């Protein structure tokens, strides 16, 4: 009996691993695109002119305020009616990138704000231009402060990628669900999928925590 379960698991595993690979791919792509956009939004929100700050903050609040599932559906089902039809894969990456941009811009903005005022004053007093102050003083340190939280968010967006199931993207959860539908062995296959998610998120979480401890040690000594 027990060995039967494991032989089934072994049979399902390749399909699930294919799904996991898709999950990792869309997560990675969304992180790359979303982080770039998030940094730009954070800089806009940090700017001195309200013309830039207000629209940026509004966009971020909207992106963070709606469930990721709504973002996915909106991009996939909504964009065609304004003339933009995307394949499932592209729609998922776009939606997750938008969600990533909104969340990470907030994280990065908090990092930028955490750079001590005294250093900005010192840079001012040295006659450095506003652009130079951002480039050499604020951004490098702000990103470093934000890094652990950003890594934590990367784990979260990996979890969120499971929502792409709702659009039929063949990622891990979709694969598990369709195996379940075919075999009626929902509990087994979903548990196995859950374990695969955990195999990524738990070690990743440990690494982030270790990294965070190391970083704080570096800053205090």
């Amino acid at each position, binding site marked *: 009996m027990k060995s039967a379960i494991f032989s089934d698991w072994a049979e399902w595993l390749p399909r699930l691993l294919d799904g996991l690979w898709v999950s990792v791919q869309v997560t990675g792509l969304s992180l790359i695109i979303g982080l770039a956009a998030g940094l730009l939004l954070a800089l806009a929100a940090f700017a001195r002119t309200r013309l830039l700050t207000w629209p940026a903050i509004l966009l971020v609040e909207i992106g963070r305020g709606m469930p990721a599932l709504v973002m996915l559906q909106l991009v996939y089902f909504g964009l065609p009616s304004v003339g933009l039809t995307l394949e499932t894969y592209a729609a998922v990456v776009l939606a997750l990138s938008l969600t990533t941009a909104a969340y990470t811009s907030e994280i990065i903005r908090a990092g930028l704000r955490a750079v*001590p005022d*005294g*250093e900005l*004053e*010192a*840079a*001012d*007093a*040295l*006659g*450095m*231009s506003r652009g*130079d102050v951002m480039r*050499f*003083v604020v951004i*490098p*340190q702000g990103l*470093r402060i934000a890094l652990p939280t950003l890594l934590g968010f990367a784990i979260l967006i990996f979890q969120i990628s499971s929502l792409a199931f709702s659009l039929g993207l063949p990622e891990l959860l979709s694969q598990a669900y369709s195996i379940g539908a075919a075999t009626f062995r929902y509990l087994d296959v979903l548990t196995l999928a859950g374990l695969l998610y955990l195999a990524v998120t738990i070690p990743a979480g440990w690494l982030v925590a270790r990294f965070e401890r190391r970083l704080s040690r*570096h*800053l*205090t*000594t």
Partner: protein
Amino acid sequence: MNQAESILSLRDVEKTFAGHCAVDGVSLDVARGEVVAVIGPSGSGKSTMLRCINLLEVPDRGTITVDGTDLDTSGTVSARDLTQLRRRVGMVFQSFNLFPHMTVLRNISLPQERVLGRSRDEADRRSMELLERVGLQQKADAYPAKCSGGQQQRVAIARALALDPEIMLFDEPTSALDPELGLEVLAVMRQLADTGMTMIVVTHEIHFAATVADRLIVMADGRILEQGPPQQVLDDPQHARTRTFLSAIKDR
């Protein structure tokens, strides 16, 4: 004092924060090479006055003249004038404010490259010269967190000097330091005064004021209460408030 030989003058400088007058019409002339010490109770406007000189605070009223160039602060100051002013006026803060993610050497070289347009080599050479002068050439590649407070403050002084300023402003440069670390910073400042640098030093170090400064200014309520040769002000203060303040710090 004759206007012609003064390198810095403030005329009726005023700065108000939310209805509270932090600097209330201060006028001051500083001669080239002069060392001015500023003392006064907390909240008397010492920092604000200092920060008005390099426009970290923009005064509400008044004129600031640095080496013949007038800045009328009631209008807007152009970015060019501001950069010009700041490379000629160096500032050292109570909290050092080094950039913690850069080595000591980068801290000193980067502003030279960005503000003066020096090449990296040129900047590094100048930085090493200054580090030697403040006795820290062995710390060039260390990060600020690996330096003591006194060492960090000496680096901050070198960083400001690297832009070849004509005037140096110090806002309580030793207040955040243990006494023995403060001494090494004061030694560097004393040496700097000997080279003929024009300096304005806000400080609670009466001994430094008495032995290094050419003039001692006492501030209260945003105004200059009295000023004169340090020994004279310390030994024979004209105002009752000065006497109370002096006895308070001497009793510490």
